[in-house]
């Protein structure tokens, strides 16, 4: 999860009193973010957009750094963070981010049409599941960062 070399970031260390909870949240990170089927850049973009939606400063900083390290252009990063239309993001990624934002903000508002849009872009059900879980997990990370009150690394 980024941070200084060889030092886990504050989100990790804030859970160090409860290795059981840390291991469980880390497992999701491993399976969804390090593993998984979608390209790493779109996963970070989804996290970035959700962190901005939740106004979570800690997570916004972490994901901005991650996207920069991946070589994503700064106008694309800014678009994920502050443009509801995601104008600088290519259409397939834009559709995934929008689906993720809806999932994170109001899961009941996700429609069959939303599923169809992602399928039309060639996403399999397993990949759509990954988008959904990334969004649910993004909320969980943002919530933890806000409640624990950690400051940017």
């Amino acid at each position, binding site marked *: 999860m980024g941070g200084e070399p060889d030092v886990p970031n504050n989100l990790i260390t804030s*859970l160090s*009193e*409860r290795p*059981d*909870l840390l*291991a*469980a*949240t880390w*497992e*999701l990170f*491993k*399976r*969804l973010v390090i*593993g*998984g089927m979608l390209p790493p850049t779109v996963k970070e973009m989804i996290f970035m957009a959700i962190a901005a939606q939740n*106004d979570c400063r800690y997570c916004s900083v972490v994901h901005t750094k991650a996207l920069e390290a991946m070589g994503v252009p700064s106008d694309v990063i800014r678009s994920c963070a502050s443009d509801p239309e995601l104008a600088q993001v290519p259409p397939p990624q834009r559709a995934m981010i929008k689906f993720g934002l809806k*999932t*994170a903000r109001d*899961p*009941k508002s*996700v429609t*069959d049409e939303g*599923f169809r849009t992602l399928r039309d872009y060639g996403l399999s*059900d*397993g990949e*759509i*599941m*990954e988008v*959904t*879980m990334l*969004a*649910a*997990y993004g*909320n*969980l990370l*943002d*919530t*933890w960062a*806000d*409640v*624990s009150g950690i400051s940017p690394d």
Partner: protein
Amino acid sequence: MATRFERITRTESNPELESLYADIMETGFGDGVPLNWFTSQGGRPDILTATWKLAKAVLLQGQLPPTIKHMIIVKVATLNQCRYCATVHTKALEAMGVPTEIIDGLTTDLNLSEVPPPQRAILEFAVKVAQQPKSVTDGDFERLHELGLSERETMEVAMMGAFANFLNTWADVSGIPID
């Protein structure tokens, strides 16, 4: 609503899924086949491995009594209007012998007046975490510490609030029917 994620119920050809399902059912989350919340993730055993590990660590293991944890989920699910999760965890509370007036109070009484004060404070903290994490104050932490909760237990309450939202999100987006 169209079927969004196929619920995988047959595992003969998939040893990884087979052993995951066996572990899930051993803890009572299904009879013959796991609850729909899990089988709807059967198409991605890698993801289910992680969500199940989280459910086990946060909900089934940990330090707080199981009743308060299921109460948190019923309360948060009610506020999120997640009928699936409210139903599953109401059934769990009934099976644990929690009195009906307390269970009903979770869904109908905003003041939680039927719930004893320590549990009420825990529920109120978890609800704040789930609904508006930025609104949680140092005073909210102190209140739980004064009731005797350790820092580790308070962490578990916070994680339960976040986890309840996580459960609701999957149930709502996948559109699973009540088991």
